[in-house]
């Protein structure tokens, strides 16, 4: 079966972002960018499905600026077969992204679409669910285990109280949680080979999708900072402070 994986270019998770002085957003100039960690897990899962003989082709798609080609090349180096970049310099909301992905899904007709559960920049946790709604497919969100069995996929999901397993009819949408797998690293020969793999660039207009949004960001501020604490010397002093100063125990 064909598997489609969506990846996003985001600020590297180790970067401590700073809010711009004019409160228009966070400062992304000269900041290290990477593939969103949940997307890496999605690519890894697709590659494992291919290694098991379940998936026959892995198509990786990203929506974003020209520079997102770097993340697509990374995915190709990890084992994806070909890539599609929907090039858009606009900042898109999840619904716009889901609509663009729906257009790609219509064209590619994958049996399984794997996305990360959330992007670590916008922290929305929406795109997979929205894509599932738009395409009318079942959704297996926050997956920690994925097993394709015939025309169904069994997805074990991380829920608040523990784990839940659902059986979804294919085609289906799966979003990855952290514990689904441990993503591999790209080897140098594979990085070289990835440069020769096909990468198609399309525009939202060519897909016939309008990405107009009903939500706009008015301002972005730094969170309130905590006042500096103190270091105590002993457990006795700590307990005394918690009892008499902070009055929390």
């Amino acid at each position, binding site marked *: 079966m064909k598997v489609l994986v969506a990846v996003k270019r985001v600020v590297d998770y180790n970067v401590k972002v700073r809010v711009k002085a004019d409160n228009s957003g966070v400062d992304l100039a000269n900041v290290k960018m990477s593939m969103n960690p949940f997307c890496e897990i999605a690519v890894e899962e697709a590659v494992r499905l291919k290694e098991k003989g379940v998936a026959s082709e892995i198509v990786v798609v990203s929506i974003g600026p020209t520079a997102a080609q770097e993340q697509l090349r990374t995915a190709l180096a990890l084992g994806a077969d070909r890539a599609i970049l929907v090039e858009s310099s606009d900042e898109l909301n999840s619904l716009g992204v889901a609509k663009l992905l729906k257009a790609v899904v219509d064209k590619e007709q994958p049996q399984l679409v794997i996305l990360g559960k959330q992007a670590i920049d916008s922290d*929305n946790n929406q795109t997979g669910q929205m894509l599932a709604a738009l395409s009318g497919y079942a959704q297996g969100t926050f997956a920690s285990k994925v097993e394709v069995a015939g025309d169904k996929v069994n997805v074990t999901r991380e829920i608040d109280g523990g784990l839940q397993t659902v059986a979804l009819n294919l085609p289906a949408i799966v979003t990855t949680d952290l514990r689904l797998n441990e993503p591999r690293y790209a080897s140098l020969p594979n990085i070289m080979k990835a440069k020769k793999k096909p990468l198609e660039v399309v525009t939202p207009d060519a897909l016939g999708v309008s990405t107009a949004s009903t939500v706009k960001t008015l301002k972005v501020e730094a969170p309130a900072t905590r006042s500096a604490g103190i270091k105590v010397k002993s457990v006795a002093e700590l307990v005394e402070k918690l009892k008499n100063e*902070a009055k929390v125990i």
Partner: protein
Amino acid sequence: MAILVVAEHTNAALAGATLNTVAAAQAIGGDIHVLVAGAGCGAAAEAAGKVAGVSKVLVADSAAFAHQLPENIAPLVAELGKGYSHILAAATSNGKNILPRVAAQLDVDQISEIIAVESADTFKRPIYAGNAIATVQSSAAVKVITVRATGFDPVAAEGGSAAVEAVTAGGDAGKSAFVGEELAKSDRPELTAAKIVVSGGRGMQNGDNFKHLYALADKLGAAVGASRAAVDAGFVPNDMQVGQTGKIVAPELYIAVGISGAIQHLAGMKDSKVIVAINKDEDAPIFQVADYGLVADLFEAIPEFENLV
């Protein structure tokens, strides 16, 4: 216009997060209706009727809703939601699973995990793991929103007397089926609702050592959490994880034991009222957010702590 709150419940009881979500609805202003969709959910609906501030409870009782499968529930919420100005749900794993699907069916953007209401169309939400707070405005006809429970004080669970009204429940969409679940069993308070949380990290060294934290937690009446490192190492199950990808907590007191304080962990606990860090590395980033820091070996400090409280 009225506000529809999608209740979080276990069929037999209403989840605490629903009370925080009703509080957010009150901050927006308007009539508040609560939808209880489930199977045999009469008790949960009755509890919803008693919640202060709720004017009507809609009950959709159908076998198809037994396990909150989004393929079955989202069409119901989207259909009912068309008559409302806002649709709210708690940003729990269930709310996050269902609401974006509802928003896409209504062709509107969704606003995730709001922590404050500025006005009926303007909200604050954290982005970049809580390192920035965005103020967003929605012009959508129906505003679909998930609410971070720790951002709002819960309304009273008693005192209301809303009418309970049955609505026509939808059927099974035939796209998905519930297979089974494995719920972690715990007698301690629920992590996201606890007044005190004691969390352990990689410094605990193994799962067995968590018994020291359980003992301390039981003395304090606290819930026990963990960092991703402790979960990944297999010390404790994943539903105990506090952080950007785990649970967001904001207790009165958060005690971080053997946790270095990575950005992703802080995202889940830095709104706690008082933070205590116990770590043997005095340069650990956790000390930068801790109100009280103790540089000590946790295996000596925790039993001593337990004896003193």
